[in-house]
């Protein structure tokens, strides 16, 4: 069996197939990157809306709350299909890839918003009070005091989520998006060994997600642990 698979390797890695896999890997990477970046930006904005104490922002706060609570409870595949068929019903002519971009961003925003909220709320209220009595504005207090202290708390779960999220993008294949899992299906249908094809895709998923996990670890260490790991001076 192994000899059969080994013999199939040169046949699988033809230029055409390598281009197919590379294109699929770029799509997976793009879906993940867009999901991560949009999730982080919109998730943070949504959290700020949710945590706002201004009365005038109450409707926005309620919307943010509903969005986060609902979207976190819906499976990614269901969201994807809802957008896919919803767009068709409403007469929009979006490609499956565009639908996948929107779906990943929508889901990622909800999850990241929740992680950012718990991180921001972990900063002691007394820190904010100290800033307040020293005449920091709400934004100055957020940028100078709250956010820098929240990042080390937010980053580990956010990067953990992003790594999981890369794997979730495989579900976009259900809408016909040519990402890694879909490429594996195509190659398998063409008669290549399923073991070889999926092992190749497995390696590609690892190559995409491992640097992200390392980056998360590095940032976490740099923003949080590094400062605290210095020898504590007793007085």
């Amino acid at each position, binding site marked *: 069996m192994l000899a059969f698979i080994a013999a199939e390797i040169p046949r699988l890695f033809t230029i055409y197939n390598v281009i197919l896999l590379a294109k699929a890997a770029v799509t997976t990477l793009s879906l993940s990157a867009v999901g991560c970046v949009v999730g982080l930006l919109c998730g943070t904005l949504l959290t700020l809306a949710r945590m706002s104490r201004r009365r005038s922002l109450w409707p926005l706060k309620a919307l943010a709350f509903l969005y986060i609570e609902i979207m976190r409870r819906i499976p990614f595949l269901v969201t994807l299909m809802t957008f896919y068929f919803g767009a068709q019903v409403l007469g929009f002519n979006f490609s499956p890839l565009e639908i996948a971009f929107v779906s990943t961003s929508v889901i990622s925003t909800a999850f990241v918003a929740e992680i950012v909220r718990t991180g921001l709320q972990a900063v002691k209220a007394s820190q904010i009070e100290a800033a307040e009595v020293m005449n920091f504005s709400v934004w*100055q207090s957020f940028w100078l005091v709250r956010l820098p*202290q929240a990042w080390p708390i937010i980053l580990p779960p956010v990067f953990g989520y992003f790594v999981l999220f890369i794997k979730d993008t495989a579900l976009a294949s259900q809408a016909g998006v040519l990402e890694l899992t879909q490429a594996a299906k195509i190659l398998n249908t063409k008669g290549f060994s399923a073991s070889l094809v999926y092992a190749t895709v497995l390696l590609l998923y690892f190559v995409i997600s491992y640097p992200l996990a390392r980056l998360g670890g590095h940032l976490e260490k740099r923003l949080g642990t590094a400062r605290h790991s210095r020898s*504590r001076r007793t007085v």
Partner: protein
Amino acid sequence: MAQLDIRGLVARYNDTTVLDGIDLAIDRGEIVSLIGPSGSGKSTLLRVISGLLRPVKGTVSLAGETIDYGDRRSLRRARNRLAIVFQQYNLFGNMNVLRNVMVTPVTIKKRDRREVEAEARTLLEKVGLGDKLNAYPDELSGGQQQRVAIARALCLKPEILLLDEVTSALDPERVGEVLDTIKLLAAEHMTLLIVSHEMAFVRDVSHRVAFMAEGTIQELGTPEQIFDAPRIARTRTFVSRILGHRTAA
């Protein structure tokens, strides 16, 4: 004219009245200490003065200007003139000692960075932390953190300094170093409103002492009057109990 003039101040947490008609006037350079049992409203009074809790009735005036707690500009002006040192220090955990002291004068008050840095270094030297400029709060002992908090408050050049139980979170051996720092301020004739359970210290530095209970000032007088000849039974019981404990300890 009093530097700080509090009249008929009433404050509530939800439905509970925590300050019930406080009248207190403090002159420039005067040191007034608030003593009393836990929950008597001492710390709450400092929170109300600094605008962390809005009063429901009464007025607070700083050098004749009444603070309108509902008006952001008025509150901002008042906060520019006073500083508070918290029981739990509340140093910014993401900033080193020097930045903790400099951040407000430079970033918020827009003062010249070099000038502020020179002042901050001098102040930290004065409180005995000139060698800890780059340390982060979690690398310092409680006493050191509290001294940084005092230096931070002083760098704001406040007209009046509010000190909220600044020694209560410290080990007994660290209390002395903070009290010595406050004595330095007292020697410089700074206006201080102190909440403290350190009776010997209160007696030593204060010009007047106010005994608080149930959200009101029950008795106000010189330290000798409050500690040696209290007029009301409540003060007498509190003082004798506290001093008795201290003696026994």
